[in-house]
């Protein structure tokens, strides 16, 4: 039973990868013939290439900004007490429980009436931050709460100012959490499609949007090739994260 479930879970991914090697002009599984031509076609296609770089840039920017903003907020929420703290924490985490679509629609309407952010990449970055920051927060809040305060006190006792103590002693402790949060934010942004569809522009179209359009229009193995490459990328990222976590 478990085997079947696993097959169900991972099977479709194999299908895509297999189909991408097909030597036929149409998508078929099992593949007929073995060829790399669709990979070559994919890598030659400007739309996919452009989309990939847009996604990379977007993901990187969103991840870095989310980490900064989110970690700062997490420190504020765990180290200081002020009225309304619980409410603010809940508010900052709420985008995670709302459908991405609702956020996208609300933002579309908002930007149409108030173009405070230029369309295209800036708009996408800022919209993704709306989910990226809560993701970072969700990871960093428990990590910060688990810090053994006496270590910081010991550092202060030995002569480090409160700020220096945080940098020298607490930050290294937070490192694994920071890395996990960064990875999470990046993956979210890279894979995200709803907000990208609503708020992206033709020139700054992330890869998911290009793929979405291509999947609907043509059923040719180029899409499969691109998809396979993305699966490979995800696999590499997961392996990298595992290796980092174990050292």
């Amino acid at each position, binding site marked *: 039973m*478990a085997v079947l*479930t*696993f097959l169900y*879970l*991972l099977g*479709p*991914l194999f*299908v*895509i990868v297999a*189909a991408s090697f097909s030597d036929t002009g149409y*998508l*078929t*599984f*099992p593949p007929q013939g073995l060829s790399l031509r669709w990979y070559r076609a994919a890598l030659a296609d400007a739309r996919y290439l452009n989309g990939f770089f847009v996604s990379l840039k977007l993901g990187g920017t969103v991840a870095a900004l989310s980490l*900064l*903003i989110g970690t*700062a*907020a997490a420190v*504020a929420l765990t*180290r*200081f007490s002020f009225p309304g703290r619980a409410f603010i924490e809940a*508010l*900052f985490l709420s*985008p995670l*429980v*709302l*459908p*991405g*679509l*609702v956020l996208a*629609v*609300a*933002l*579309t*309407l*908002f930007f149409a*009436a108030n173009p*405070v952010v230029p369309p295209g990449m800036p708009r996408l970055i*800022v919209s993704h931050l*709306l989910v990226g920051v809560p993701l970072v*927060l969700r990871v960093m809040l428990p990590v910060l709460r688990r810090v053994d305060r006496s270590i*910081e006190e010991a550092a202060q006792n030995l002569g480090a*100012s*409160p700020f220096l103590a945080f940098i020298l002693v607490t930050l290294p402790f937070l490192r694994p959490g920071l890395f996990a949060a960064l990875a999470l934010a990046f*993956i979210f942004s890279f*894979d995200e*499609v*709803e907000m990208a*569809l609503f708020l992206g522009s033709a020139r700054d179209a992330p890869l998911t949007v290009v*793929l*979405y359009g291509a*999947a609907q229009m043509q*059923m040719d193995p180029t899409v499969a090739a691109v*998809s396979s490459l*993305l*699966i490979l990328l*995800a*696999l590499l990222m*997961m392996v990298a994260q*595992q290796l980092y976590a174990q050292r």
Partner: protein
Amino acid sequence: MSTSGRAGIPGGLVAAGLLAPAALLFAVLFVWPQLGLFLQSVSQPAPFGVAQYQRFLGDSYYMGVLVNSLALGVCVTLVTLILGFPMAFLLARMESRWAGLLLLLTTFPLWVSAVVRSFAWMVLFFRSGVASRMLQGTGLVPHDFQLIGTFTGVVIALAQVLLPIMILTLYAVIRGIDRDLEHAAMNLGASPAVAMWLVTLRLARGGVLAGSLLVFSLSVSAFATPSLVGGARAHFMAVTIYEQTLELLDWPFAAAIAAILLAISLVVAFSYGKLLGDARSEVR
């Protein structure tokens, strides 16, 4: 940092400074747009009216879309539950070194975009795809049948997409159940099966509900999978909202539909939070 008050910089100022970017982000891009969404949805007849809601709820076509989406939620939840629980149980109780690897494999699909995962199903469901051909072979369906565009197809695809989430939620809860509780039950006279039923499953109940609500909520509002596997005109809330917003540009209407979707999500999220808390505290 209990002495930040002495260090010179008032603690309050530091906290405010740390919170400022997030607060700004949320005020401008979350609170304001959400309010705007709500206002748009009640903007007709001007200045305040629920005409858009009436339009949605009064039309049998749109109500059909709502019902269809809810039905999707129910079906996907059931499938993921039936397949996910045994899997989660196995993984949580497994002692071997492979347990970690298997858990990793189970969650790997989550690293891949929904677009890619849905596309895989498109390939399988297409007229000449494996799945369709298998069904055609049984003779139960016409020979050019395809699962693309069907409700069943979407259920199968979406269930696969959301299965890892269900497994993860259940895994966490089952993992938190102390094995000794089962052992204690057996020590007091219960057979292994009875001990499982009375103790473990009973304690996992909260987690099951929590996982179900999560998957349900995600299914009802799903966009990528239903629109790719179900077709661009598929009768689901998310697809309809997309149509109204970007194609038909009927924004007040789109806002209303989105608001209804939001309401459903909030109700579900609320119950989810409460149930997960209860599940965790029961297990302890």
